[in-house]
């Protein structure tokens, strides 16, 4: 059941990505930064909300909001921007959850992020609810009546809340004051929720790239100016509006809440909430095989600290050694490790990584499987493509048809630079690495660290002796296989122009990397 749900989410996310890549290219795909965009939209909501608060009057809610909406210079679009930003926030948050579900990133060490994300989304919905009630137009009154009906079904209040809206007396100011208080208190709670949400992530991305966030803000601003959000007539408990405006994105639940019995509504809310909260627990995998946490071979660890710097989850720390060597040794906390394997590519002596995916394991696999196949090819056809498994499923077939030899990786951030060096020194004409868009990496930072290791001398760097003309790193975005094929064709033509390399004999990169004190190693 859970796997089927993940599969649906994955297909949906990938289909949306394909559309976005075709329209904007992977650099400007907002879906890759849906979480950061949601955080940015909270900033927009805070700024516009503070402005609206200056002109809102608890004693005359409908009149004050109508005055704000009637101000064509600032008030109208500020109010509308506040509303559209709410919709955009909820959409971004929902897409963010969908993406994480589709990428199986909702369980294990990410459980806290999922649970706090559910809390943030729920608070966002509640905030939208109180915000609409603040305006006290016919829609605000509708939401208040629907909410009162639900709360009256709970045995917690001595007097039914619904009587406030009966019309035999004016709706008390205290109600609007309480509503305003809740509307302001909720965002403060969201601040705490956001902190919890990213508390287990190293280097959380809370702000989208400047150009993207301003473009989206400008689009919402333009929309606010062109299409002001509707405002119904002032709420009157003694009239029965035929219809009201309804913000479908944030108050889609209203027709159901009005039509169903309160106990059914509460039961549905409870069951749905529990089901969503249970996702990380139902979706978890046994920590073995490809989900086994990383481990460190203390004999190989030089105490260089690079894996702790590269780990996107802060799952590795340096601790005192138990032997006589003077350095610290890396230690993986398995409860924090998500098995992304980024550490495999970060360790010069190849002493860390998930079982079977350390740099040494990669070299062993290369020698036993890939290298013989490469060396069996004609010399000018030895172009190897190392590609992330998360990318386009059709790409390998297309690349093979174009003459490439394909080797899959769980993430390009796992790739140890020695693998590329060994390939080049053992006869491959060139190596092309195809990674995911940097902001869409399942391991969070794989393409970023790969690029730094290959071109900016980040530790576990690709050695200077490897001819960079024979190495190419490209981004393979979903729906843009043509771009990768173009890059491959160009790369291949460039390789043909280079002098063919002779395969070196007896290259053992493992020995080069081992510390002298390591002793006998496998």
């Amino acid at each position: 059941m859970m796997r089927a749900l993940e599969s649906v989410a994955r297909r949906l996310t990938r289909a949306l990505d394909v559309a976005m890549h075709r329209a904007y290219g992977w650099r400007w795909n907002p879906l890759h930064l849906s979480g950061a965009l949601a955080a940015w939209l909270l900033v927009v909501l805070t700024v516009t909300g503070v402005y609206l608060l200056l002109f809102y009057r608890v004693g005359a809610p409908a009149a004050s909001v109508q005055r704000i909406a009637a101000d064509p210079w600032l008030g109208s679009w500020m109010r509308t921007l506040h509303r559209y930003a709410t919709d955009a926030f909820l959409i971004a948050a929902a897409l963010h959850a969908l993406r994480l579900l589709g990428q199986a990133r909702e369980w294990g060490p990410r459980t806290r992020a999922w649970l706090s994300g559910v809390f943030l989304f729920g608070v966002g919905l509640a905030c939208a609810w109180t915000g609409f009630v603040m305006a006290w137009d016919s829609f605000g009154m509708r939401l208040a009546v629907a909410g009162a009906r639900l709360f009256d079904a709970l045995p917690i209040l001595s007097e039914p809340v619904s009587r406030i809206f009966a019309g035999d007396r004016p709706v008390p100011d205290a109600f609007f004051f309480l509503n305003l208080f809740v509307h302001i208190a909720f965002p403060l709670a969201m601040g705490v929720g956001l902190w919890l949400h990213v508390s287990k992530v190293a280097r959380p991305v809370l702000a989208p790239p400047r150009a993207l966030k301003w473009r989206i803000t400008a689009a919402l601003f333009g929309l606010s100016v062109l299409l002001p959000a509707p405002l119904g007539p002032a709420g009157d408990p003694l009239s029965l509006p035929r219809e009201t405006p309804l913000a479908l994105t944030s108050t889609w639940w209203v027709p159901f809440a009005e039509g169903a019995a309160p106990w059914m509504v509460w039961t549905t809310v409870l069951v749905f909430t529990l089901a969503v909260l249970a996702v990380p627990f139902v979706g978890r995998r046994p920590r073995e095989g490809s989900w086994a946490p990383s481990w460190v071979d203390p004999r190989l660890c030089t105490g260089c600290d690079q894996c702790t710097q590269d780990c996107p989850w802060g799952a590795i720390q340096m601790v005192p050694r138990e032997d006589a060597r003077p350095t610290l040794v890396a230690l993986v906390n398995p409860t924090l490790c998500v098995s992304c394997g980024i550490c495999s590519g970060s360790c010069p002596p190849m002493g860390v990584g998930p079982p079977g995916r350390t740099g040494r394991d990669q070299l062993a696999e290369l020698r036993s499987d890939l290298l013989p196949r490469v060396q069996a090819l004609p010399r000018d056809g030895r172009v190897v493509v190392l590609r992330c498994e998360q990318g386009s499923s059709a790409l390998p077939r297309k690349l093979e048809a174009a003459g490439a030899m394909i080797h899959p990786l769980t993430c390009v951030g796992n790739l140890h630079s020695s693998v590329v060096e060994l390939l080049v020194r053992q006869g491959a004409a060139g190596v092309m690495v195809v990674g995911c868009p940097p902001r869409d990496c399942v391991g969070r930072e794989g393409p970023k660290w790969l690029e730094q290791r290959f071109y900016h001398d980040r530790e576990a760097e690709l050695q200077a002796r490897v001819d960079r003309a024979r190495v190419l790193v490209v981004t393979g975005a979903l729906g843009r296989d043509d771009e990768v094929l173009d890059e491959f064709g160009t790369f291949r033509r460039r390789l043909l122009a280079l002098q063919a390399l002779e395969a070196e004999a007896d290259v053992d990169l493992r020995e080069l990397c081992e510390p002298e004190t390591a002793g006998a190693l496998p």
Partner: protein
Amino acid sequence: MSPWRLALGLTLAVVLAGGVAASSGAHVPWHGDGASQLRLSWSARPERIETCRTLSDEEFAQRPAHMRQRVVCEGTTASYALVLTADGDTLDASVIRGGGLRGDRAIFVLREYALSAGSHRLQLRFSRREAVDSATTQHALPPELLLDTGVVFRPGQVALVTIADRALRLVAP
């Protein structure tokens, strides 16, 4: 960026933005055309019904010193019958009790009845069900409240009946 991709990007942006605006500006039916409604809304303290008796000398002597009162009373709370008819048809006939587990808290009435627009004859009776010795009660509510009136309902309008000055009153329209 190619002109084709620029056009595609702009089109998608317009569609997405339009989708947000449309979803934010949708109009959804609430009460429908021509709806009108009778609403009953009030709160009141229900009658406290006490049964008092004088203790015999023997009973009085058995009581602890701090509980010795010659007259002791035990009380319950009255319940009320609500009967509503419109043009002779019974819309509601129910028993109203006070709030709380023992029914001794205030009565809250909030009931709504859909009625067609036009003229209707309303008859409402709200009466105590228990017989009470009037000498021992505090008369929080009159034993019987009656309203017999004609109301013209306009489409989209609520007629509100409440208790004011110890009487049922039609306060709107």
